[in-house]
Structures are given as C-alpha cells and as structure tokens.
C-alpha cells in the first residue's frame, strides 16, 4: 500500500483531480471562477490551507482523540483560513474583495476537511504534505482552467494576473462576448460541460 511521495502528489493531478474526479468543494468552483485570476487566487489560497492543515493534522495525529477529531480539524483549518484571510487582505486586497465570502468558506470546503480526515490523520507528515500539494495544485489548475474558459467566453478577454491580459476582440474583431458564461447559470452549465469533457477524456 505504501506509495511513493511522487505517487501521492500526482494522484491529485488526475486520478483524484478535484473537483472533476473528486466531485467536491463545488461552491468556490462555481462562485469564483468568473475570471482566471479569481480561480488562480482561490486555488492558491485553498492549497495553502490544505497544506497547512494536512501538515498540522498529520503532526498532531497521535494527540487528537478520535471522538473530537472533527472539531479539532475544524479548529486547525479555521485558524489557517483566518491566516489566509489576513494575509490576503494585507497583500492582495483587490483579489480579497473579489473572492469575498468564499475565503472564509474555505473552512467548510469538503476537500480540506476530507483530506485531513481521510489522509492526513492516518499518514506521515511527508506524504500528507505531498497529498495536500497534489490535490491543491490539481484544484488550482481546475479552477484556473474553468475561470479562463468562462472569462474567455463571457468577457472575450483573459487576464492572467494584474495587468497582464489579452483580448479575443483584438484577434477576432467580430467576437461577441457570451455574457451567460460569467453569470450564475453559466457557472453551473460550464462546470457541467467540463465534467462531461473530463468524463470523455477519462474513458
């Protein structure tokens, strides 16, 4: 059963790729992926919390009594989320404003709690961190992908980070932005179609 660190890391990138293979943590996926930048930021924030909580849960796994483990995980995760909130306010304030309520909600993201419980509580520190990094990076990539798709369709542009942005209209002047994609119903439909595509590739 022992897997190498590399395996623990790479499984998050395809085999257990959230949210497509591991259909969890959908709220931020739907809520923040209006642009690629948002998706990327959310992904990084989640990865940070995931790594921190996995690390700490794995370190403390002997000390935490099984019956209150969920409450303990929640405390650890909540602490990390607050740290992220504070750091984001201090360094990436505009992004913090855009992500809004979804930053505190990382605390109830099933992926974070799920990995703490299903993996970190049972595995040693190095593999837990590898697992968290893999899942986190997978999540970040998925969010960015969905974000860029929706941004391209809906705004006709793609903002990588800050001022670095490209516009489709420069290339294809006749392009009409499909605003539906950036709005709420579009979020569901785009994610549903992405899932479908992943299913097709997975087959």
């Amino acid at each position: 059963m022992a897997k190498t660190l590399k395996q623990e890391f790479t499984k998050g990138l395809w085999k257990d790729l959230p949210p497509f293979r591991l259909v969890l943590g959908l709220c931020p996926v739907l809520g923040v992926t209006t642009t690629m930048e948002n998706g990327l930021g959310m992904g990084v924030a989640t990865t940070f919390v995931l790594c921190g909580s996995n690390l700490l849960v794995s370190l403390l796994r002997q000390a935490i009594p099984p019956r209150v483990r969920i409450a303990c995980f929640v405390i650890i995760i909540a602490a990390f989320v607050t740290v992220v909130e504070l750091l984001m306010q201090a360094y990436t304030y505009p992004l913090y404003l855009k992500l809004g309520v979804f930053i505190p909600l990382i605390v109830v993201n099933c992926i974070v709690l799920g990995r703490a419980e299903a993996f970190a509580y049972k595995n040693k520190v190095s593999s837990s961190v590898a697992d968290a990094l893999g899942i986190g990076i997978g999540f970040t990539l998925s969010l960015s992908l969905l974000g860029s798709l929706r941004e391209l369709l809906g705004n006709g542009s793609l903002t990588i980070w800050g001022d670095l942005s490209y516009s489709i209209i420069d290339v294809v002047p006749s392009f009409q932005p499909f605003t539906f994609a950036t709005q709420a119903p579009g979020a569901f439909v785009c994610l549903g179609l992405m899932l479908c595509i992943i299913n097709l590739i997975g087959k």
Partner: protein
Amino acid sequence: MLESILVTFSIGAVSGVALSYASKLFYVYEDPLIAKVEGLLAGANCGGCGFAGCSAAAEAIVNDKAPANACILIDEENIREIAAITGAHAGPPEPPSSYNNCSGGKRATDRFIYSGIWSCTAAAALYGGNRDCAIGCLGFGDCIRACRFNAIKMGGHGFPVVDYDKCVGCGACEASCPKTILEVKTLSQRLFHLSSAGDPLAPCSQGCPAEIDIPRYIDHIRNMRYEEALDTIREKNPMPLSCGRVCPHPCESLCRRGIADEPVSINQLKRFVADYEMNSGRRLPIACSPATGKRIAIIGGGPAGISCAYFLRRAGHHPEIFEAMPKLGGMLRYGIPEYRLPKKILDWEIQGILKLGIESHTNVRLGLDFDFCSLVAAGFDAVFFSVGAWKDYNLGIPGEELSGCMTGINFLSRVGGSKPPAIGKRAAVIGGGNTAIDCCRTLIRMGLDKVYLVYRRTRKEMPANEAEIVAAEHEGIEFVFLAAPNKIIADEEKQVAGLEYLAMELGKPDASGRHRPVPIEGSEQILAVDTVITAIGQSPLLSFRGRGNRLDDLNISRWNTFEVEPSTCQTNVPYIFAAGDAATGPALVVDAIGGGRKAARSIDLFLRGEEVNPQEDALLNKPIGESIFPSVPGVRPMGRIGLDEIDVTNRIQTFAEVDLTISERDALAESNRCLSCCRLCYNVDTH
C-alpha cells in the same frame, strides 16, 4: 492579543464542555458497528454520498442499504476495511466476493423494445425490465459503473463478468443491481446456498441432488478451462471422480436437449474433468475459509460423511471422521464393485479431501470402540451421523442361515475389503436393485459359470439403473423374473444346493404405481445353485443405540432411519444431524453428497449460534415449473457421443473398469451439445 486568546479559549472550552457533557447526558445506544464504520468514513459530512452525513451513511452501510464504497472521499484501503467490517457482520470473517448468477444475457428474448436511458435501474422501473426472464440480467451495466475497483466487465454475451482477483466484495455492484444478478457472498454463503425458486437454474441443475451448476461447468469445458470447471463442480460436489463414474445422472433425464435429441452426457463430462485433474499429476487447490475453531464429529466416512466434512472444512470448521471400516468411502468402497469404481481412484479422491485438513479415524465403531458421551466430552460442538444403511433385510424364508447364502452388502463389502468370501460355481442373486446387479456383475467376474438374478416382478419394474441392467445382460447374467423365493434347499453338508421359488403374475397396480405380484399356487421351481445372495434392500444399522445416552432420545422412523427435518437434516436433538442413507434409506451416492452439504449448512448455522431454519424458497429438487418445457425449438438432433467400454468377453475376466474416460475431443464435442440453458433461455443450434 490577550483578548484574542481569552475569546478563543472560552469558545473552545464551551464547545468542549458542552459536547462532552452532551455526549454523556444525551447518550443513546448505537450499534458499535455503526461507530466503527463511521470512524472509517471521511467525517467531512459533505453529503456527496446522498445520505444525511457520515453517521447516516455509516448506518446505511451497516444495514446493507448502501454499499461499502458509498463515501466518495475515502480511499480503497478504507473501503476494504469497511467491507471487512460489514462482511464480518453478515457472515464469517472471510472475504466476500461478487458472483454472477445470470448466464443468459443477450440471448434472452425481449418482451418489449426498451429505448430508455442506458441504466438497469431505469429499465427495471418499467415493468421490471424488457427481458422475458423475470430474474435475468438486463445488461445495461449499472454494476460496472458502480464498481470502484474495475473488477467487472461486460462480457461478450451481454452479462457482467467478475474479475475475482480485483473484487474486494464491497457490495457496490449488488446494491446497484435492481435484480439479484451479482451477489456478493462469502465462500461459505456460496457453498451452503441451496438452490432456490428465485435462482437462474437450468433444468439439469434442478434435477441434480447435489445442485451442481451444470451449465456453468460445461461452459468451462467448452472453453477448455477444465480447472475452473472442476472448481465449479467442487463448489457443490466434493467427489467428481466417484460421481462421474457411479452417478445414475438424474440430471440427464431433465436435459432440455433430451426433449428434441439425446440428452447431453453430463456425467461423462464431469468424469472427464475429474480424470483430467487426476491424470494431470497435480491437485487443484481448494479454497477454505479462515479457521473458526469449531469441531464436528462425523460418524461414518461414506459419501454423506465425506461431503459434510468437506463443506464444513471449506467453511473453516474442523470436522473429524470416525469410520468403522478399515478405510473411508463407505458404500463407494464396500458397496460398489471395483469394475465400476476402482479403489485407487476412490483413494486418490478421498485423500485429496482429507488433505484440506480433515482428520479421520478408521476401524473405530461407535458404541464399540468409542462412546457417544466421550465425543461430547472431547469438545465436539456438533455430531453428524452418516452411518449409511448397512443392514440387509432378511428374506424371511427357510435356509437363509445356510453356508453359501449371504446378504448383498455383506458379500460386496467382503469382496471390496480384504477377505473375499468363498463362493461356488453357480449363484442366484435375489433382488432387483443396484445392489443385486452389482452382486451379479461381481460374481461373473469372480469366474462363476452361471449367475441368475431372481426378481419377483418384471424387468420394467426393476429399480436398478437401466445402464446397469443392460450391462448385466450383455455380460450374460440370466434374469429370472416373476419369481418369489420360497426356500433355500440344503445338501447334507448344510451347504446351499438350490433355490426354490414360486412363479408370480402381476396383479393390480398398488399405491406406488407398481404392479403387485401375486404368487401362482403350485408353481414351485428349483434353480440349481450353490450360492444365494439376498439383496432386497437395506436399512441403517443402529446398534449403537440403547446404551443409555442422548442417542436413545433420537426419533427413529419406521424404516429404521434417523428422523430428520428434510431441509435442514437436523434431528430432534439439536446438535445431532444426519443425512445420507442413514436418514433417507438406500439412495444414490449423489443424494448422500447433497445431503451432506445440506447438513453442513445447518451445522454451520448451528455453530454460529444462529437458528437452524430451512432456507426460504429452497427447491430441494422440486423442478421450477416455467423452466420445464414441453418442446424445445431450434435444436437439431445430433446424437450423443458413444461410450467407450471394454469388450464384453474381456471385461468379465477382470475387475478392470468397464467404462473408459471419454477423449478430450469427444468431451469438447459433447460440451458443445449443451444448450447452456438458464431458467428460460438457451442457445439454439446455429449450424
């Protein structure tokens, strides 16, 4: 800083105290299994499983309402652990595995054209599915999608095929199937399952007293997977070598091909794979469940005893066989002559079964060499009686005590043992059953000049197997029908000198449908013979009773057999079970083997502390009405393979086996004659 610490401290303290006291104050008893399963679930309460949180999911899993892999967060290791927990809940701690019941698949006819969503569940919601067969596979593969281990694939015939190496027995497939095509069962659940009215059974399987899945093993043979064929047989019958030789194959008379053509030589195919193993020079491994530590005393090492011991051993128990004769095998050894079942083949077969870890004690007779009370004292948890029917009925005519007159079983067992009896030159065997024929055919091989078979009715009424009668005729046995022995005539040395009998005529049929013979006054005739063997039936020898122990409490029927509940083989003393001839009176070997398995099922239930109830819907060899067809369209008669046997003039010189094993080519050809029937569907002949 301080405020912050104070606030978090107080929130933490309030939560901790509130929760810990609440858990004490509002404690409600919960099945510890649920807590155990919940401990293995992700605990994220994400709701991805469709249940209201992890504890609700755990409860559903324990109560078999959800498969072990319901949680979408946890990894395979946890699923395995959960499967192990719930598996232990359902039966003994042995790995359950998925098992496909339907072999119909695509060939089953449709009642209507279904063009809905590609899902069994959806299809089944519409009038139970589009297939004609109420129990068959719908073939949309819900189970394949449900399996998280890639252990199920859709076979070419339109039904799921399980890869047993990958299956962990999580139960997801079973839960996803709207029918009961895939059943996740432990080994012992499979071994002990009695054919039931809801099973997809071919007519032949319904007719087999051992309930072997005949179409499945024939299919294995067709695909040259002989080892799997043997495994399939051994799931229900531990003695394919012996049965392949001596079984009168009631299955073949139900064979669906037999309606339009000659039936498939099912028994020859069984013998072929059994011989294949023996000649291959190695024994196939036989899977056994983990040890349970329970001990069972098996009294009598005949087919019923061996079968019961075998199944109990495979279920993880520890049976010990006590046998009065010098070797195990019972009637197989001492009642069936060498030319039908060579002793070295029987030895090889029994040895293989004992190798599973069954202890045997021979030359020990209950009541003489050991006492029933000592068994209980020795810590046996249950006792199984398979003492057979070794007591010949007496004719009740003068002269039976003469030298040169003996009983059939006595004669056969002495020939089969090490001390053959002294016999003369001309013999008369009285009786029309298999024992009588066996005596005749044995006598002719012992070099006698003339062997008569004296039977009081006609050939049509003879209970012996047709094939045996024909063989006896070929071998020159003279049949004297409608003859009732009157007395045995002695010479001056108190030796048998002849058999006087009355000629009979058939009267009106009696309750059993047989014509009752009526003696004709003054028709006495004498057969000049120096040996008379009476073989008119047997009953169990119960001499171990009457010693003032629990055995005296046993109910005994008026045929001197153990009175048992027929579907459980349990006697009125709960820990005593009985099967085989001892419970049924003289019957087929395969009946004894089936009885041994039925008894093993009950003993297993008894040892696990469960109620020994008959299995619901058990068929017990009653046919399923809808599966017995009056005609079978689509079958092109082609005749069965001829049977190789030794030429008559040669064979009566020796005890060499008469019937020879069929060749692989013939076996393959014959297996292709099988229609692979299920309950309703079958493969028609296409060429």
